[in-house]
């Protein structure tokens, strides 16, 4: 139960932060990516602002053995980059630019975003369902 309450607290604050920062507005996100247009620097402040508390949090994980609920902290990720990281990030970035939504803001705007947001989420879920088989194919191709 404790874990569920902590998850809801985190999700709620994440959503509030996305709304306050303006990141649920697709034109602000596209404005940041559009360096040759009317460039909007807001997203840099959002990302910078979000990284600060997390730097402190990661530092605190080195001082404690476990999290509040007694679960271990996530181990350092495998430093190997791999083709899936690059191919996936390029695909994600292109889709992000095309519409101006990434997964968090897409979900956050579900209750007021209208039909467009719902269609985006359904398409995103379809993409997520297809991802495991595409990953297998890419791995096979890369092994040749």
């Amino acid at each position, binding site marked *: 139960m404790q*874990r*569920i309450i902590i*998850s809801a*607290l985190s*999700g*709620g604050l*994440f*959503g509030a*932060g*996305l709304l306050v*920062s*303006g990141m*649920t*507005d697709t034109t602000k996100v596209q404005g940041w*990516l559009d360096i*040759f247009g009317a460039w909007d620097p*807001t997203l840099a*402040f*959002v990302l*910078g*602002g*979000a990284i*600060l*508390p*997390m730097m402190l*949090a990661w530092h605190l994980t080195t001082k404690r053995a*476990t*999290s*509040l*609920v007694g679960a271990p902290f*996530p181990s*350092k990720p*495998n430093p190997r*980059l791999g083709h899936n990281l690059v191919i*996936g*990030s390029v*695909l*994600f*970035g*292109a*889709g992000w*630019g*095309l*519409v*101006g939504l*990434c*997964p968090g803001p*897409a*979900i956050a705007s579900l209750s*007021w975003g209208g039909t*467009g*947001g719902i*269609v*985006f989420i359904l398409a995103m*879920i379809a993409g*997520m*369902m297809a991802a*495991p088989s*595409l*990953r297998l194919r890419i791995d096979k191709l890369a092994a040749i």
Partner: protein
Amino acid sequence: MIQTDWIWGLVGGLMIGTAAAILLLGNGRIMGASGIIGGLVDRSGLGDWAERVAFLAALVVIPALMLPIYNVEISTKITSNLGIVIAGGLMVGLGTRLAMGCTSGHGVCGISRFSLRGIVATVFYLLAGGIAMVLFRHGLGLI
């Protein structure tokens, strides 16, 4: 309004980072939106489905409750071209699961621990997003 946008960006960013810190220090989990959704979609994360659903439900409900605070109508201003919306959604879903992270997981949580994977992913999705704007807005005039 435009002049204060960066302040609200910073305040909202600090809230997003604090949300990620709560999940990390509380549950020992990385706050990655695509991972939390994707684990439910491809069934790889059904073991803790209740936590994922609680996170996502609060992510929808809390901003909705805040809307009356704003005097202006909040809109995502998403394009009405459904073909573009579907193409973008598919790419975001496929891409984030192949790369195992999005702006929150690789960007916020990865960069803050100086993870090479997080930094490389962020560089590539920002570059691809910028190129998409050049191609589709300035080149083809689609968006």
